[in-house]
């Protein structure tokens, strides 16, 4: 942004730099990106269509096959109640996906809109919302979420809503910062001069510009929400048994760490792979779309 201003002052056309990408920087999406992106796709598709895959019922107990390691009939083994671990991991992904994406979509809708409007309008609205966001950020998220969940109840929609609200101030700050770097640009002034309405400037002029930064932040945000839900579930404060989730599977495995390590390893691995995929895809997108970190 300051670069562009400097160019303008030196009589150069700032558009040239924006339109023609620099020769030495030709970002390419490598195979690593595509592998991890496909993994995210596979996890989403299998958990959504889990019912069509012919898996065992994830809550079906079989006391003749308890705490088995991987076998031919149960590829990832069974747990302490003889339930199929593969099936529980696939169905359990639903909790992480619903909470992760649900909470971030909520935070994006509220925090993102507020952030754009605050950065565009400035003034008292900006001051007020920014102050509120600082107050909320001062509260440690996990403690707040634990306290509210333990008083209010832990249905999945409540957990999604609470984590969504807790994530809103961070989204607000990121969106506000990246909108700020565009809000005073010439093309916005030009649109205003042509009599464009504020809503049009926000949606048609500013939104497309901040979208790249927002998308990569969204993916990394989903990863951190999944970690937060996992910590809740690990402490036994997320969705109730027998509904499987990665976090509560790891929690249930605690008692059998010495007898059946697979019980802890497979859901941990599922979670790790999904989180690292989100991080890698988000990070690659960010450098691919060349978001300047300093502006955040």
């Amino acid at each position, binding site marked *: 942004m300051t670069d562009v201003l400097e160019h303008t002052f030196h009589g150069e056309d700032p558009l040239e730099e924006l339109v023609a990408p620099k020769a030495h920087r030709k970002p390419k999406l490598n195979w690593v990106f595509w592998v991890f992106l496909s993994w995210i796709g596979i996890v989403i598709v299998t958990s959504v269509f889990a019912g069509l895959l012919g898996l065992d019922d994830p809550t079906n107990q079989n006391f003749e096959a308890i705490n088995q390691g991987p076998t031919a009939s149960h590829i990832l083994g069974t747990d302490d109640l003889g339930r199929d671990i593969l099936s529980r991991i696939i169905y359990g992904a639903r909790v992480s996906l619903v909470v992760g994406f649900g909470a971030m979509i909520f935070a994006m809708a509220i925090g993102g809109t507020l952030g754009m409007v605050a950065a565009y309008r400035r003034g008292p609205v900006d001051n007020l919302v920014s102050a509120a966001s600082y107050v909320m950020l001062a509260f440690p998220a996990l403690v707040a979420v634990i*306290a509210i969940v333990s008083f209010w109840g832990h249905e999945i929609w409540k957990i999604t809503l609470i984590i969504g609200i807790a994530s809103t101030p961070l989204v607000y700050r990121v969106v506000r910062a990246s909108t700020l770097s565009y809000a005073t640009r010439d093309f916005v002034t030009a649109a205003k001069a042509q009599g464009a309405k504020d809503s049009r400037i926000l949606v048609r002029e500013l939104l497309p510009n901040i979208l790249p930064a927002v998308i990569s932040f969204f993916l990394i945000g989903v990863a951190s929400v999944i970690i937060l839900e996992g910590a809740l579930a690990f*402490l036994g404060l997320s969705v109730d048994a027998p509904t499987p989730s990665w976090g509560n599977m790891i929690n249930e495995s605690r008692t059998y760490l010495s007898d059946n390590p697979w019980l802890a390893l497979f859901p941990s691995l599922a979670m790790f792979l999904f989180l690292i995929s989100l991080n890698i895809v988000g990070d690659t997108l960010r450098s691919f779309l060349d978001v300047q970190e300093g502006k955040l």
Partner: protein
Amino acid sequence: MAKFLAKRLVALVGILFVVSIGTFLLIHLLPGDPTVTILGPSDNAHNRAVLMQQLGLDKPIFEQYGIWIANVLQGNLGQSFVTHQTVMSTLRHSVPIDLELVVISQVIALGAAIPLAIASAKRPNGLLDKITTTTSFAMLALPPFIIIVVMVMFFAIDIHVFPGPGSYVPLMEDPVSNLHTMILPSLVLAAGSVVVYFRLLRGDLISTLQEEFIVMARSKGLSDRYIMWRHALRPSSLSLLAAAGLNIGGLVAGAFVVEYLLQLPGLGYALVNSIQQVDYLSVQGITLFVAVVVVCLNFVIDFLFTIVDPRIARD
């Protein structure tokens, strides 16, 4: 400087006020009659009346808050109806454990992160740098509850180096076995912190090393080691402070998780225990305490910033 500090203090008081309101309102999130939910449906009318009076539930909500906050400010966080202990005594027993965990883990984390960051920043994109940055990136995807489970399986069950869950010994009783039990949870907490410190410090050092005053120092013929420690590392103390601030949330989460799994009677363990025993007043008290500590720590870190870099106060 004084004006800046005064402004910050006002903000701190404001934030603490909001935190207290949030914690106070928790009781009102309970579905139905709070006295029934807290005491259970079978408890007698006398206890119910005592609780009603203690919480001031029959009064208007502003007055309730007034009574509650007056008690809190006098150090009275209420008394558990389940264990009949005051919340204060629970705090007194658990806080030292958290302090010990945090101190040991941060010493380990800084001891590992600073040398690693220096070694990596010396040759950006070199072999060591590639290994450390890739590993630290992967570790971002490892939540503390996965690290602790894997570490317990390996260190406590497979090779029996550290004791497993439920073997906590108070520091005053037997310092040696206390330290022995505290190493495993501290390592887990340190693992999360190392990643944060390392990534910030490495990026910072790489950009500092390209500054002109480093070129100047080099051209004076100073040794690389001297430049690194005296010239490059010093301006990075700000980043380390910022990292410490960012890390507080992660530390709290990590401490809760390791205490739960290893049954260390710290704050996290007390909190989860109170939740499982439907001991709402303890949950409320511990929540308030942790939130206030975190808010104050952030304030102190902010304040340290202005001491390290007085320019911040002038803005």
